[in-house]
Every structure is written in structure tokens, then in C-alpha cells.
């Protein structure tokens, strides 16, 4: 068996560890540095963060404008400063529905949406979303009217995308906390409505 075959048959965890060991051996990082980074990231990464920003945008027109024009400034105002990517937020309307994908790998705003779901990293989601999004969304239980334009955002650069869902009808009496509780991770990806 060649070493290539070894790689193909070993688990993701084994391959990840091998990569870590090579980076450490090359003097590029240390185990402590990797542990500290992951602890910091996952201690705070949650879709609750993105949900709070979406709910605030529904209740505060100025914040909505900031969120759509300068995602990083809006994130900082909500207490999430120092994002290590450019945040771009795209808004769903009556006429447009946005969906995010990364066809090259699995880029995703982890700090605001939490660890990405397995399906987001699957070949099926990554290849089919750009090609037949209506069929993919239908498999998520979301069938949109033909009149709604679907806009796919492929995260191929240093920018990370988040969807601002449309505010659901009948929520006029709710405050920002109640509204945030309605916003799901899939809503922020675009594979569900809120």
C-alpha cells in the first residue's frame, strides 16, 4: 500500500494529527498554541451570536444598515470584535433568498454561527448548491415561490458570509431577545426561513 492510500484510509482525526505534527516539527506552531486557539474559538462560537445581530437588525434600522455595509463594525458593536475575516452579510427580502456555501473547502463564519454542520462540509452540499439550489433547499424542507430570486454566495476568498433572514410576520410585539430566539443556524446559512 502506498502512503497515499494510507492517507485515504485513515480517519480525519489521524490525518489532522499528522498535519499538526508536521507543522510543529517545522517550527510553525506548538501543541499549546493549537489548544489555546481552539479553546478560545469554541468557548464563544455559537449561532446565538449571529442570531443576536440579526434580531438587532430587525429592530434597529441604523444597525441593519451598518450590518449590511460593514459587517465587522456591526459585529464589534454587538461585542464580537477582532473577527479574523471580513464579514459580509446579505439580506433576504420578499424577492431575494440568499444561501451561503464554500465550494472549495468549507469556509464559514464559525465565531458567529458556531461549528459548521457536517452537511455544510459535504461534497453533495458544496457541489449541488451552486448548481441546483431549489432542489437542495427542497431537501431541507424549504420550497420557495418561483418568483423569489435565489442568490448563492460561494465563499472563495477571505470574506465570510452570513444571511440576514427576513423577519417573520406576526412578531411585532417581540423584543430583541425574543426575536433572537427565533433565528436558527440554518436561517443564517440560508437553508431555512426564520
Amino acid at each position, binding site marked *: 500500500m502506498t502512503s497515499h492510500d494510507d492517507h485515504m484510509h485513515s480517519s480525519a482525526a489521524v490525518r489532522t494529527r499528522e498535519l499538526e505534527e508536521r507543522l510543529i516539527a517545522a517550527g510553525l506552531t506548538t501543541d499549546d498554541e493549537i489548544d489555546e486557539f481552539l479553546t478560545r474559538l469554541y468557548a464563544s462560537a455559537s449561532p446565538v451570536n449571529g442570531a443576536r445581530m440579526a434580531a438587532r437588525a430587525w429592530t434597529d434600522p441604523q444597525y441593519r444598515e451598518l450590518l449590511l455595509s460593514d459587517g465587522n463594525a456591526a459585529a464589534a458593536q454587538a461585542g464580537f470584535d477582532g473577527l479574523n475575516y*471580513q464579514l459580509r452579510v446579505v439580506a433576504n427580502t420578499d424577492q431575494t433568498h440568499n444561501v451561503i456555501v464554500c465550494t472549495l473547502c468549507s469556509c464559514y463564519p464559525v465565531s458567529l454561527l458556531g461549528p459548521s454542520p457536517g452537511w455544510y462540509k459535504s461534497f453533495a452540499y458544496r457541489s449541488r448548491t451552486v*448548481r441546483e439550489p431549489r432542489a437542495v433547499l427542497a431537501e431541507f424542507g424549504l420550497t420557495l415561490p*418561483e418568483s423569489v430570486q*435565489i442568490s448563492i454566495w460561494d465563499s472563495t476568498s*477571505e470574506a465570510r458570509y452570513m444571511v440576514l433572514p427576513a423577519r417573520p410576520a406576526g412578531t411585532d410585539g417581540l423584543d430583541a431577545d425574543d426575536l433572537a430566539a427565533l433565528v436558527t443556524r440554518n436561517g443564517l446559512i440560508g437553508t431555512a426561513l426564520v
Partner: protein
Amino acid sequence: MRYPAGTRVRVRTGDPDHHTRVPRYVRGHTGEVVAALGRWPVPDDSARGIVPPREETCYAVRFSAADLWGSGDHTVTVDLWESYLDQP
């Protein structure tokens, strides 16, 4: 910034033997710039350890599904560095 929003751009067709961030499905296709995202190191250079890497404006470029796939009524927006693009 060479291509303001609204500019029609065509993606270069080259198939480099090194890392690149041009998805195959947009190569040779024409789209419209919807936003300039800022200047960032070109990943083709960074991945090859070229120091310093070129820094270029990266653009969000929108393509129609009908152009990309021959069918579909959606759009796909892809982020592409300036040297990936030409004017048609």
C-alpha cells in the same frame, strides 16, 4: 481598484498546477462585479511561499446560473482576485 461595481469581467481559463481560488465552474465565464472587497494577498502566491505575495483587490463577481450551467434561474456570486479576471 480596476473594476468598479457593475463592470463585466471574464474569468481567465488557465489551469495552474498550484493552489488557486478560482473554482473550475466559473473559468471562462463572464459575470458582473457587485462589490470590491478590499486588497488581500493572492492565495496562489501565499500557498507557494512566495514572499511577499502579490496584494490585489478581490471582487465579488455575480454569474447567472443559465450562463454557468445552461439552466437554472438563480445567480452565483464568487469572490475572485483581480489577476483572475479580464475585461471581456
